[in-house]
């Protein structure tokens, strides 16, 4: 075993290489590795999030579809109801109109009847007067008995 200056030479090399490694080798490699680790974990997290998002979106789509279906059903129901209502309303108006026409016709008939009665009455009284005139001739004063005749006519 010859111990000599080689020992110190080796110590110097040792220090130099360790310092070089510490300054120029270790930090960049370590940084790259740490960054890659972070990248990978980020990627995994993103994938997780994406699948969760997808699930949510699917759920949302299902919900909306269901809601739309419900809305459509409601609309149809409403439309049906409205149609029934319209039909009912139409029926009602038709009935009322018929009734109205009926009453109008009835009242017209009544009026006509009254008018005819009036006319008849007047005519009857005239005919009666004429008959009585003819029967009674001069004996009967029209003016004197008109009261009695009117009373008669009213009784018809």
């Amino acid at each position: 075993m010859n111990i000599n200056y080689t020992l110190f030479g080796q110590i110097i090399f040792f220090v130099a290489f360790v310092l070089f490694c510490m300054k120029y080798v270790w930090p960049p490699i370590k940084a790259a590795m740490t960054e890659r680790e972070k990248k990978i974990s980020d990627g995994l997290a993103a994938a997780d999030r994406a699948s969760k998002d997808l699930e949510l979106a699917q759920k949302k789509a299902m919900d909306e579809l269901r809601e739309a279906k419900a809305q459509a059903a409601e609309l149809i129901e409403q439309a049906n109801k409205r149609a029934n209502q319209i039909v009912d309303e139409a029926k009602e108006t038709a009935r009322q109109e018929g009734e109205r026409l009926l009453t109008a016709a009835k009242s017209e008939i009544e009026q006509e009847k009254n008018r005819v009665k009036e006319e008849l009455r007047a005519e009857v009284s005239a005919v009666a007067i004429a008959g009585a005139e003819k029967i009674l001739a001069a004996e009967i004063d029209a003016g004197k008995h008109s009261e009695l005749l009117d009373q008669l006519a009213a009784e018809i």
Partner: protein
Amino acid sequence: MAGENPTTTEYIQHHLTNLTFGELPAGYMRDDGTVLTESMWTIAHGSSEATAMGFNAFHVDSLAWSFGLGLIFCLLFRAVAKSASSDVPGKLQNFVEIIVEFVDNNVKDMFHGRNPLVAPLALTIFVWVFLMNLMDLIPVDVVPELMMALGVPYQKIVPSTDPNVTLGMALGVFILMIYYAIKIKGVGGFVKELTLHPFNHPVFIPVNLFMELVGLLAKPFSLGLRLFGNMYAGEMIFILIAVMYSAGLFFGLFGGLLQVGWAIFHILVITLQAFIFMVLTVVYLSMSHEDH
């Protein structure tokens, strides 16, 4: 190999000798018989010259291979770090990230303080020591023979079989241990830890100090010597098996088979030793950060 026809001893010794550049003292007689009038810096020829140089020497091969392998680590990882992105990683980036992740997980398990130095330190140690150990898997004769042909007398290509290298790293770790122990606990806290454990009574201070100091100093030495011992032994076995090549065709083939088997087993050893060095470094630093 040292001579034209080296003996087994020469062959093994050649493989275990570093390329040493150092100062030969004045008055030293070199192999070729010349006597130095004054001290001089030169490449050692033979282990006796290397021994004579003593402390005033460098193992050129250890330093070069260790630096080169460290440089490969730095450049490779720096290239990835530069182009690192959080997008889908390429093959190289993936490979580097696996290692970084592995080291980071180990550090997180063992080190609970907050210190930006520890993880890069662990990464550097793991990869660098692994690369140095990996040199052990290159067949033992290839590089030394090649260098011989180029005129370089010795070449030990596994830096972690050089105690200078492993102890150098262990001392680097030791300095960090002391630095952080004092930084986190304060000088008082550090001294208290050395003197009032395990027996918390003033009478026991010398005993405690002795025990704790031995424990403290044992850490870097065991750290460095464990790696050195394992790699040296592994290299030695490769060399010893390689000696069989000179013992005829049958032993040569058998030796080749053994080399392959040992190399496959050694893949485990070099990885494990790099891992152990890293883990112990992190554990020691973690202990320095623990406040009692």
